[in-house]
């Protein structure tokens, strides 16, 4: 792996707020994206993920606050914007263009565009380069946009729901291709998705946005250690969890499962209780359900 050591390679989001009408989509958010990291941007529908990505890529203007890429403001700044690539849910290519023409177009904007890899990926995904963009199905439209995103050599690649409409095989292939291009040419990927379980192991850092605010930023490793679940006979579970921080409980007859925050000390857990890891998806659901995800749009 090549590690770039230039500390200026960063996206800095500072005190950003954005409202649509009387709905505040983002409330005074600050965060930093470091070079050569893979970030997961998680949040429920309407949490503000897409708004954040649209602001970073200058497709929207913030009400207040600043966003800079490698030290330069992104606002109407082609130089700063050329450092990032945004794969959005919306299609930004002319519909009558063919896939191959779109690749050429991308290569004009991003001179480092890896056309060889694009060709290989088309073959693997069985995407016909002669097809017009408007002829592509939902799944193939995602694949087409995803291939461009994986072949662009920008410092920051923003992916909004990159596997939307893809079947399980194509999702696997996409993740595999992502890992390959990331290993060959490390750059920062920011992935917004609802398929948490599938991407957990690829993420270095997880950011959870909830109702326009940052709920949590931590390394995946720390988050996976952040909690665990214990299950067994209700009274035994009850006794074990008293005094601990609990973020959820499931009851099934006389059986009980409790989701506990904090590091696990196996020696303290009664042997008749089952201990399970709390995966990122469970943690996410528990963290974002109590105070309900609201509609921000």
């Amino acid at each position: 792996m090549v590690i770039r050591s230039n500390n200026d390679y960063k996206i800095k989001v500072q005190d950003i707020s954005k409202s649509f009408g009387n709905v505040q989509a983002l409330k005074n958010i600050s965060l930093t994206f470091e070079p050569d990291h893979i970030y997961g941007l998680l949040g429920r529908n309407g949490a503000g993920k897409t708004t954040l990505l649209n602001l970073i890529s200058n497709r929207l203007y913030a009400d207040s606050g600043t966003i800079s890429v490698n030290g330069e403001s992104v606002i109407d700044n082609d130089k700063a914007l050329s450092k990032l690539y945004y794969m959005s849910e919306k299609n930004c290519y002319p519909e009558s263009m063919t896939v191959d023409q779109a690749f050429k177009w991308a290569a004009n904007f991003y001179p480092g565009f890896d056309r060889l890899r694009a060709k290989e990926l088309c073959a693997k995904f069985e995407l016909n380069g002669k097809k017009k963009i408007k002829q592509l199905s939902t799944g193939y439209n995602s694949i087409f946009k995803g291939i461009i995103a994986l072949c662009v050599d920008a410092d920051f690649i923003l992916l909004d729901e990159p596997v939307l409409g893809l079947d399980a095989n194509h999702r696997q292939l996409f993740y595999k291709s992502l890992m390959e291009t990331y290993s060959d040419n490390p750059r920062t990927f920011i992935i917004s998705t609802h398929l948490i379980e599938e991407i957990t192991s690829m993420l270095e850092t997880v950011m959870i946005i909830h109702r326009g605010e940052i709920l949590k930023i931590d390394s995946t490793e720390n988050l996976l250690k952040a909690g665990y679940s214990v299950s067994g006979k209700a009274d035994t579970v009850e006794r074990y969890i008293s005094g601990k921080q609990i973020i959820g409980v499931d009851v099934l007859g006389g059986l009980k499962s409790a989701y506990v925050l904090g590091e696990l000390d196996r020696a303290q857990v009664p042997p008749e209780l089952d201990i399970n890891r709390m995966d990122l998806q469970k943690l996410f659901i528990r963290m974002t359900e109590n105070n309900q995800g609201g509609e921000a749009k």
Partner: protein
Amino acid sequence: MQLDFQSDKPIFLQISEQIEDAIFTGAFPEDSQIPSTTELSARFNINPATVLKGMNKLADEGLIYKKRGLGMFVGRGAAQAVREKRQQDFYQQYIVSLLTEAGKLGLSKQELIALIERNYGGETNGDQK
């Protein structure tokens, strides 16, 4: 190699243990090259930094070494080193938990010894759990 994403064991540890296992069984012989970080990360969709962490653990233990520009290779005497390490771990990992479980089941010392002797010299290599 098989990784268990449901396990509470960190992925980097699973990687180092599985490579260690392959070294021990001879699947990765001494002086042979082990899969690269890229290969492993693309195969299992895991962040290369996680793979690297697992590899570094083995490198620190002297089980694998780096050939500049080529990749990571299995060290001389690595299989033997793993064997010795595992013999040391055997008591803690197996005997202690065996005694705990036997205690929970209410098995006496004699009963436990009888059970061990019943299978001893027979199919002791079975993968029963």
